[in-house]
């Protein structure tokens, strides 16, 4: 009986011990930022590093759960969108405090919104909230409630608050007083940033223990990816949040348990033709690029499967359209990736009078089809993609010249001089909502890349996209919005103003010392549940 009791006692100790390891790991988590954050003001965060600091330190009213892609309450217990999508009312949690002990109230939300919408601040986060002319009205209501009214309806309004970190109106520390899991304790410019556990953080685990479990986060500034990789292998850092396919395979070969492929991400790579009517291109080339048949033929002549397999080593998927399949709600599942079919491509070209003569494709006036594609120098993945397209297009008699330019020169050509023929670039997408793409799809927008700032839509299909994008943006009903946006995706698939090439996978590498890690496709892939991560016993003790 005694033996049984001893074994039982030991068992209970082991169970309690293991749960306490998970619950109270302490220690220091380490990873690298690829550049120094440009600001600690959460409203001004635009670069990756500043956004990382904002994510780790900022408290938000509601958060998009990166795993389920659903909106979850944070500082706000509940919320309600009314007035046709113009007003949102939050019920805030009681008794919360900023990292310096200052009490959190509805006044802080009102102050943050006032700062966010201040035109003098030029907040990139605030831009998403600017709908129509007029001012934003914020009312502090009794019982810890706050109502914000915008001058025009904003579709998907609630999800935008995922990016708005609340600042204190009364704290002497201003933006350094935070409501998130950590606060900035030390900043050694160019070297590292040390975040420490916020003692006033409000979240608790299911058994009532305060979160986060890890005491501090050490963020090293490290631009060199080789060095970052070596540091991971040596155990000096705990994870690489986003890793290239080449390095990912290296991790797989060394320690497969460290490598995490969360599947296809929101990011895409695409090529587009210059369709600007005032560009300095010869008229016969303008005619090629504005032809739907020509664009679709080029699309069909590109072997996306090979591109995903060779350039991204299988960690990418042929793209379908503007929305990645990773975007569970908005992706139009009726659409399929364009097939690689050079015969069909030649048939389409023949419809426009192109013909293959001695291995050279010529238009109806006899011009040999030759054009250039520009991409940014130094991005080896894009250079490889362009080189693969170059070989693919020789199959239909087209000569493609690949030109790599330094980034400022490339931007100058695609936004000001329009002295280019085709461009290959990628789109890093953080936002699930199509509203974030309004600036790309509206024909009047200056970032409507293939033909920016049109006074009136140049084509009927662009006019249709304008109409549908505006309709989805002003409709509060998600189902109706999805219908409109599905139609936009169909038009983009048929017309191919952007020839979408691949969607890259979300790849990361995580040390076995970090527990509770569930890498996802949305940013930040690894540390989206930062307050629930724990470190193994030994690592936690040694740091």
């Amino acid at each position: 009986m005694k033996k049984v009791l001893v074994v039982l006692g030991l068992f209970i100790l082991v169970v309690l011990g293991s749960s306490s390891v998970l619950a109270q790991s302490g220690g220091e988590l380490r990873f690298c930022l690829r550049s120094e954050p440009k600001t600690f003001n959460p409203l001004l965060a635009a670069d990756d590093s500043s956004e990382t600091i904002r994510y780790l330190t900022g408290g938000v009213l509601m958060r998009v759960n990166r795993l389920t892609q659903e909106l979850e309450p944070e500082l706000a217990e509940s919320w309600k969108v009314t007035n046709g999508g113009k007003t949102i009312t939050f019920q805030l949690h009681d008794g919360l405090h900023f990292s310096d002990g200052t009490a959190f109230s509805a006044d802080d939300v009102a102050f943050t919104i006032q700062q966010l919408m201040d035109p003098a601040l030029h907040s990139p986060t605030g831009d998403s909230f600017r709908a129509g002319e007029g001012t934003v009205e914020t009312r502090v209501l009794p019982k810890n409630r706050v109502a914000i009214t915008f001058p025009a309806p904003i579709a998907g309004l609630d999800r935008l608050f995922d990016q708005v970190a609340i600042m204190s109106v009364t704290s002497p520390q201003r933006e350094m007083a935070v409501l998130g899991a950590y606060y900035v304790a030390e900043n050694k410019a160019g070297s590292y940033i040390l975040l420490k556990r916020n003692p006033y953080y409000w979240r608790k685990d299911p058994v009532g223990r305060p979160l986060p479990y890890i005491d501090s986060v050490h963020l090293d500034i490290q631009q060199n990816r080789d060095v970052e990789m070596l540091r991971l292998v040596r155990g000096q850092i705990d994870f690489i949040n986003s890793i290239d396919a080449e390095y990912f395979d290296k991790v797989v070969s060394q320690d497969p348990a460290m490598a995490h492929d969360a599947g296809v991400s929101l990011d895409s790579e695409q090529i587009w033709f210059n369709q600007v009517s005032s560009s300095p291109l010869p008229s016969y080339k303008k005619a090629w690029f504005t032809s739907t048949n020509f664009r679709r033929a080029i699309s069909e002549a590109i072997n996306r499967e090979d591109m995903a397999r060779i350039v991204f080593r299988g960690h990418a998927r042929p793209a379908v359209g503007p929305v990645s399949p990773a975007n569970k709600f908005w992706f139009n599942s009726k659409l399929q990736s364009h097939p690689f079919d050079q015969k069909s491509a030649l048939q389409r070209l023949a419809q426009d009078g192109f013909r293959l003569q001695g291995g050279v494709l010529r238009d109806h006036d006899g011009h040999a089809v030759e054009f250039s594609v520009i991409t940014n120098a130094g991005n080896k993945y894009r250079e490889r993609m362009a080189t693969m397209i170059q070989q693919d297009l020789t199959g239909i008699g087209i000569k493609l010249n690949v030109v790599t330019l330094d980034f400022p020169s490339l931007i100058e050509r695609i936004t000001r001089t329009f002295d280019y023929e085709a461009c290959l670039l990628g789109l890093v997408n953080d936002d699930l909502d199509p509203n974030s793409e309004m600036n790309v799809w509206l024909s009047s927008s200056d970032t409507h890349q293939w033909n920016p700032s049109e006074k009136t839509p140049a084509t009927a299909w662009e006019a249709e996209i304008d109409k549908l994008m505006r309709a989805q943006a002003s409709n509060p009903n998600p189902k109706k919005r999805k219908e409109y946006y599905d139609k936009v995706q169909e038009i983009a698939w048929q017309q191919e103003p952007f020839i979408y090439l691949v969607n890259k996978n979300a790849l990361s590498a995580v040390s076995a010392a970090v527990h509770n890690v569930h890498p996802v496709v949305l940013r930040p892939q690894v540390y989206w549940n930062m307050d629930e991560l724990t470190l193994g016993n030994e690592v936690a003790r040694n740091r």
Partner: protein
Amino acid sequence: MKWARIAAIVFLLTVSAACLLADFVAPASYAHQFRDLPDAPPSRQHLLGTDDLGRDRFSRVLYGTRVSLLLAPAAALLSSLLAAFIGGIAGFAGGWLERCVMAGTDLFLSLPWLFLLITVRALMPLNVSPIISVVITFALLGCLGWAGAARVICADARALARSDFILLARASGSSGFRLLWRHLVPNLKPVLYAQFWISVPVFILTEANLGILGLGVAEPLPSWGSLLRELESFSTVTGQPWQLVPLILFIVVVSSFHLVLTKEELPA
């Protein structure tokens, strides 16, 4: 060190011959992508394996060496001629002309080369074939690389202009172009040769640097610059040592160029 010089000459001649005969020696086109064999290790079919797009690395080394070895001396010749013309006339004329030319040369030397090259490269027309693009790149290098050599030649020409034999030539009625062409230029030849041989590896290195920045020779044409880009990622190279072959060849060729110079031709 005579044997080393001979070995260097033999090596350079062998490499040059192999590159010139690349069309016959190379087992595949430098541009052809064997898409089923990306990053393949060395085999009988691909002696140095394949690159990340499945292109035969041995063929690319041959063609890349041809591009760099043909065009770097051409650029060096252009820059040496420009240096001889500008530096020689300035040194020979002396006075205000020399001061003006040397001020201009100093200004040229103070230009940030790399940024200038990147800017000029960005201004080039987009629709040029890779071969024309590489010729333009090396022509640019030649046009921009004369200033250092011009300073050396100017100093040498100035010393020669004040020498006794030039004084004698002047006294015997030689003047102007005849004095320059018959008396000065032959005596500047050693320093011109030295400047030429020094410039060749410098231009090879500059093109390699531009290639590493992605601004060198356009795809699919290979050059040493584009071949050396494969070595950007140290962690990838450690598992594939055959990727180091272009680097080793590059080092040996540049060293051979230096060995080719006699003691007298080497700069002080």
